[in-house]
């Protein structure tokens, strides 16, 4: 009696949940930022993220099928082999063929999964050249820039290494936080909008070098499929090609202390002309107060590193 109720309840609960997961595939998406009740990935803006979404969709169907298969077996067992329907239990405890099958079939499934997975890894993980981007993704990039991101507690400092010592820090808006962000403009994404967004040109190979001053952070932009740890004393490298003009947001993705939630990443992807104009304007208007030494920042926070920092991000002078 109870078994029947149990079966129905479990079936109802999980069909609902799994249907939800399936719906994630076909969801409307915003650009560059999450939206309310979002169930799937953000709209991709780079070839890497498109690859990730494709492979994940394949995986999602596979794991949904496996889960439903197991659920189906269990429900069948509940109805067919409950004490009422099957009063005399069988004594069968071995079936070599069956055991071989349920070892070998999962191996085959895993190999089928591993091949595209390795391809994805080796295709996307290595920082490419412009030629390689053209070969692998069919995109002719307009150019190449290198951006260095340094994680501070709690802001990102960016250096456009192709342009001398041009660097600035990028903080969260809001009077509560240590950074000088100030009031956020109207309509800003709370906890995502920064006072000094990173600006990059569209269709350009952007190489990102990532490190940190004191503790580990992670630089992440979901729409680009980029996430890499910022580790003191280590220069990690990742890359993206943004294919669409727009504003893209991410958040620090490694617990880095008290204000971990408050160090967003904002990347404005603009046309090459806008980028050139922005860069020229920035270089011309460089003010000493925009060029901050991280050691000063630490002093402002009342945090005194007990010994010289591992990596002292370039101090402009």
């Amino acid at each position, binding site marked *: 009696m*109870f078994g029947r109720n149990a079966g129905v*309840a479990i079936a109802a609960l999980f069909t609902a949940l799994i249907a939800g*997961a399936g719906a994630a595939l076909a969801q409307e998406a915003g650009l560059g930022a*999450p939206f309310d*009740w*979002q169930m*799937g*990935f*953000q709209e991709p803006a780079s070839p890497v*993220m498109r*690859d990730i979404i494709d492979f*994940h969709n394949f*995986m999602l169907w596979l*794991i949904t099928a496996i889960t439903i298969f197991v659920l189906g*077996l*269990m429900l069948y*067992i*509940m109805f067919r082999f*409950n*004490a009422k329907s*099957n009063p005399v*239990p069988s004594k*069968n*405890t071995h079936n070599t063929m069956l*055991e071989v099958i349920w*070892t070998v079939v*999962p*191996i085959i499934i*895993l190999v089928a*999964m*591993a091949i595209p*997975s*390795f391809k*994805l*890894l*080796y295709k996307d993980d*290595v920082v490419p050249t412009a030629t390689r981007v053209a070969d692998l993704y069919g995109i002719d990039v307009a150019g190449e820039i290198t951006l260095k991101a340094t994680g501070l507690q709690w802001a990102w400092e960016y250096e456009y290494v192709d342009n001398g010592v041009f660097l600035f820090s990028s903080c969260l808006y809001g009077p509560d936080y240590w950074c000088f962000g100030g009031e956020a403009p109207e309509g800003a*994404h*709370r*906890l995502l909008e920064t006072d000094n967004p990173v600006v990059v040109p569209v269709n350009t190979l952007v190489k990102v070098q990532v490190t940190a001053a004191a503790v*580990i952070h*992670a630089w992440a932009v979901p729409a680009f*499929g980029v996430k*890499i740890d910022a580790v*003191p*004393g*280590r220069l*990690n490298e*990742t890359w993206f090609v943004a294919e669409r003009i727009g504003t893209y*947001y991410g*958040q620090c*993705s*490694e*617990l880095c*202390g*008290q204000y*971990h*939630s408050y160090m967003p990443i904002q990347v404005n992807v603009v046309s090459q002309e806008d980028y050139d104009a922005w860069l020229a304007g920035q270089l011309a208007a460089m003010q000493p107060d925009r060029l901050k030494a991280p050691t000063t920042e630490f002093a402002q926070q009342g945090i005194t590193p007990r*010994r010289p920092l*591992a990596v002292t991000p370039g101090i402009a002078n």
Partner: protein
Amino acid sequence: MTETTAGAHEAHGTPTGWRRWLYSTNHKDIGTLYLIFAVVFGIVGGLMSVIMRMELQAPGMDVIWGDSSTQEHTFNVLVTGHGLIMVFFMIMPAFIGGFGNWMVPLMIGAPDMAFPRMNNFSFWILIPSALLLVGSTVIGDGAGTGWTVYAPLSTIGMTGPSVDMAILALHLAGASSIMASINFITTIFNMRAPGMTLHKMPLFVWSILITVFLLLLSLPVLAGAITMLLTDRNFGTAFFDASQGGDPLLYQHLFWFFGHPEVYVLILPSFGVISHVVSTFSRKPIFGYLGMAYAMVAIGAVGFIVWAHHMYTAGMGVDTEAYFLAATLVIAVPTGVKIFSWIATMWGGSLTFETPMLWAMGMIFLFVLGGVTGVVLANSGLTTAFHDTAYVVGHFHYVMSMGAMFGIFAGFYYWVGKMTGHQYPEKLGQWHFWITMVGVNLTFFPMHFSGLAGMPRRIADYPDAYAGWNLISSYGAYISFAAALFFLYVVYRTFKSDEKLEANYWGEGATTLEWSVPSPAPHHTHEAPPTVR
């Protein structure tokens, strides 16, 4: 000679009052102490998660006390405390210290553990350990490092006594577990009843044997890592300090060399319990016994060579990632063997759905759900999307909070009559299961969605778009915690029940040796070894 014998008998009487517990060398009493300890800290750790969920119920920092100079740090302290307490002071004491102590000697026909006094010490050293950990949240600022205690956040990033106290708490808990491991290994290898070869040993004993081997081999590595943290913090060493030639990633490798086997330490005893429960309520012997035992051995062995899949975004290089990807996928094979063997055990059985069976079937299905998301996460190509998001939190709570904790509840309802002589109230037990089932799924399933949408884990406040699913998660957490409190009521009702229990109250399906002794199990059992065919 006669005197000695008489003296020995005297010593074997049941001590009374506080002496019985503080001085206890009896595996059953020590097991009971461990179980009480686990219940207490399950409630403490659960309360911490409820506070976190209250904070995350809506955007903004509205719930946690203090102002913006401390609130977010307090949140991180709760994250850390919840993780460490649930791992070291809830699941491990319940499974290994609690059910392990109670059932391993009973199941192998031994009169007690091999080293009864060390057994006592293993338990009582946990008390100062727990006091240190709980103390670390109130003395100083609290340890807001996460349970992983990553350097340099845990070294230069957090001053004051809290992190040192948490490290010492881990040292003591580790010493406790190492002693318990030695005790179990010795007991299981040397004190099995005549005729009980390793290949006739009940699967729960197998699971404990493998678990304690994992602990024995991995905990010393943790001890080394956190000792280096301690000296980096206090004595000027620079093991993990890049500015002096150390390496922050070294800590991560050491931690996860312990940390990954540790998560199997949490799940393997659950596998053991589930095997017994499924077999009992299907009224069939376990299907593919040897495959089941060696699948656990395989999971344990492979568990030692997959650790860096926790570090895919650390910048290890593509070939390293590829290796850990492949090794991690391999684990799905023995895990699949276990799932299918449980299903085959039920197949053709004569199933009844008493409370332990509900927990066991719930565990099997939800563990599959948590397992398949684990297979997704194994793919390091996807990791730039998934690493450190709420998806990961959803994944590991499906395998821990459902895989391991459902196993604990299955074991509790299965054995409580044997341990106490009081049978639990069936209807209330089933209610407990269903409330928990609804609660945990509401809590953790939406985390997959917010994770896919990009929500990082361990954040005290989030962008407004994530509000919807977080609200659902929070309601789920309240329901789950209500279920935990309801469990305390079920325990109360269990002790009020005066139903007389037979030795084997589950009937023909329960075949292991603990069912051959009366319920409740007397203070001393198997004084003469039983014979095993």
